[in-house]
C-alpha cells in the first residue's frame, strides 16, 4: 500500500514528464492499441454496413481459410521461404562484405565503396520496380537484349513464375547487403588490433587470423541479429513482393506472400472475413516467434533481449 501511494506521489511529482509522454501515448493508443481490437474481425461475418458491429461467426473464417487451402499454404510457404532465403544469403553476404571492406588497406576507397553500397537501401521500391522492368521487359529490356545478342530466345519474365525466386533474391540482396554490412563492420572496427598482432607473432597467417579471430568475434552479433530478425518471419516487404513483381497474377505461385495477399484483398475490397483470419494467423505466429526468440536471446546475451 505504501508502495502504491509512493508510486502515485512519484507520478504526481513528475507530472511534467507525464505531459511529455502524453502525445506518444495518444498515438500509441490510436494507431497500435485500437487496431489490436480489430483482430475480432477474424471472428465476425463482416459486412460494410455494420463494420465492427458485424455479427459473430465463430471460426467460420478460419474454416474458409483452410478450405482455400492451396493458396493459403502457398502464401505461408512463400513468406517463410523467402524469409529464410533472404536471411541466410543476406547474412553470409553482409558478413563477407564487412570482412572484405575491413581488410582493405585503402581506407578512403573502402569508405567510398561502402557509401555506394549503402545507397540502394534508401531508394524506394517503386523506383526499383521501374529499373527491374527496364531490365526484364520482353521488348527492349536489357537482359533480353543480352540474351538475344548471345543468340538465345527472349524471355517473358513477367509471366514465368519459376524465375522469380532468383530475381527477388538478387533485388533484395542488392538493396540491403551494403546497409546490413555496416553493423558487422562496426563490430570489426572495434576488435583490439593487439589480438591480430599476437596471432601474427605466433605465426598465424591471414586465413588463420580470419578463422580464429575475426569470425568468432562476429558470431555473437550474427546470432543475435538473426534471432531478433526471426520475430518478423511472417512479415514481408510489400515493396518487393507487390511493386517489383508488378503484382502480376501469373507470378503469384512463387511471389505472393501474406502481406501482399492482404494488400490485394483490401484494395479489391473482397473477402474481408478470410483476410481477417489470415492477418490474425499472421499476428499470432509473429508474436509466438518474438517471444520464443527473445527467450533464447535472453539466455545467451541478456543485454540484447528486448524484454
Amino acid at each position, binding site marked *: 500500500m505504501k508502495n502504491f501511494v509512493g508510486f502515485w506521489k512519484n*507520478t504526481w511529482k513528475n507530472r511534467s514528464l507525464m505531459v511529455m509522454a502524453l502525445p506518444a501515448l495518444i498515438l500509441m493508443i490510436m494507431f497500435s492499441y485500437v487496431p489490436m*481490437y480489430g483482430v475480432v474481425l477474424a471472428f465476425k461475418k463482416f459486412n460494410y454496413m455494420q463494420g465492427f458491429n458485424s455479427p459473430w461467426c465463430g471460426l467460420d473464417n478460419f474454416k474458409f481459410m483452410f478450405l482455400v487451402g492451396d493458396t493459403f499454404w502457398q502464401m505461408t510457404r512463400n513468406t517463410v521461404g523467402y524469409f529464410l532465403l533472404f536471411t541466410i544469403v543476406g547474412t553470409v553476404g553482409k558478413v563477407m562484405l564487412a570482412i572484405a571492406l575491413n581488410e582493405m588497406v585503402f581506407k578512403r576507397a573502402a569508405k567510398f565503396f561502402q557509401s555506394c553500397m549503402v545507397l540502394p537501401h534508401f531508394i524506394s521500391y517503386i523506383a526499383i520496380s521501374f*529499373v527491374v522492368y527496364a531490365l526484364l521487359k520482353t521488348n527492349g529490356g536489357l537482359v533480353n537484349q543480352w540474351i538475344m545478342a548471345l543468340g538465345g530466345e527472349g524471355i517473358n519474365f513477367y509471366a514465368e513464375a519459376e524465375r522469380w525466386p532468383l530475381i527477388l533474391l538478387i533485388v533484395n540482396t542488392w538493396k540491403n547487403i551494403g546497409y546490413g554490412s555496416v553493423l558487422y563492420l562496426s563490430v570489426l572496427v572495434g576488435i583490439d588490433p593487439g589480438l591480430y598482432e599476437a596471432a601474427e607473432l605466433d605465426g598465424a597467417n591471414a586465413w588463420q587470423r580470419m578463422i580464429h579471430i575475426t569470425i568468432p568475434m562476429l558470431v555473437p*552479433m550474427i546470432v543475435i541479429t538473426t534471432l531478433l530478425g526471426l520475430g518478423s518471419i511472417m512479415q514481408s516487404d510489400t515493396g518487393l513482393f507487390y511493386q517489383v513483381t508488378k503484382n502480376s497474377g501469373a507470378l503469384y505461385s512463387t511471389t505472393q506472400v501474406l502481406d501482399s495477399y492482404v494488400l490485394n484483398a483490401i484494395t479489391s475490397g473482397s473477402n474481408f472475413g478470410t483476410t481477417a483470419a489470415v*492477418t490474425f494467423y499472421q499476428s499470432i505466429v509473429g508474436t509466438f516467434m518474438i517471444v520464443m526468440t527473445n527467450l533464447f536471446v535472453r539466455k545467451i546475451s541478456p543485454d540484447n533481449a528486448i524484454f
Partner: protein
Amino acid sequence: MRKTGIGQWLLTILMGAIALFCLLPMILIVVVSFSSEESIIKNGYSFFPSAWSLDAWKYVLGYGKQMVVSYGVTIFVTVAGTLLDLTVEGMFAYTLSRSTFRMRRVFSTLILITMLFSGGQLASYMVNTTIYHLKDTYWILILNGVSAMHVIIMRTYIQGTVSEALIESAKMDGASEFRTLFQVVVPCMTPALASVGFMKAIGYWNSWQKAYLYIDDPNKTPLSLLLMRVEKNIQFLLENEDVMSAEMYAAVAGSIPGESARMAILLAALGPILIAYPFFQKYFVKGITIGSVKG
C-alpha cells in the same frame, strides 16, 4: 602494417566492382532520362543510347501542375511527419530515460506490447477508415503509431551520453523538465536526432502503401503514388493494346509519358534523397549500431 600486395589490389577491384554494381541502376535511370525516345523505341534500354535528348526533361517541366502539387505534398508530409515524430518520440524517450520516474516501467511495457503484437494491416485499415475517417486526408499520411525502435535508439543515446548529474544540476538551477529537455538534453543528442530523423524522412519520402490505400484526391497525391499511377496507365495500355480502337489508343498513349520521360519523373522523385544522402551518412551508421545492438 599490412603490405599492399597483389591481393590488396584484387580486393579493391572486386569491392569497386560491387560498388559500381550497386550504382548501376541509378546510372541507368540517369542515362535513359537523357536518351532520345526514338533510340529507346528502336534499340530498347541502353547504357549507351544512340542519341541523347533533353526532351524528357522538357516533358517533366511541362507535366506541370500535378508534378508540382505532388512534389509539394511529398515535401510537406516528409517535413511535418519527421518533425512531429521526432518531437513526440524524443519527449517519450526522455521520460523513459529518467531513472527517478517510476511510471517509466509502465510506459516501457506499453511500448513493448506494440512490438509484440499488432492488429495487422486489415484492422488498421478498418479502424482508420470507419472510426477515424482519415481517408483522403493529410493526417493519414503524417500520423503513425510510435516506432519502438526509434524510441529505444533515442533513449539509449540519452542514457549513454547525458549524465544524470547534468540533468540534476539543471533542475537545481530551477529549470523545468521541458527546459531541461530542450536546452540541456536536446543539444547533446543531435547525432541521435539526425540519424533517426534521416531514417524517418527517407521513410516518409518513399512511403507509398498508405497513399495507395487511402488517397484518391489528386491534390493530395504524393510523388510515390503519382509514379504508381503513371506505371498503371502504361500497364493498362499494354494489356489492352489489341482491344482498343486506334483513336482510343492514341488518346491514352498521348496522355502518358514516354519511356525516357518516366525515368526523368523518377529521377526528379529520387533527386532529393541522392542529394541529402552524402550529408547524412555519417549519422545513420550511429543509428544502425545503437538500434540493433541494444534491442
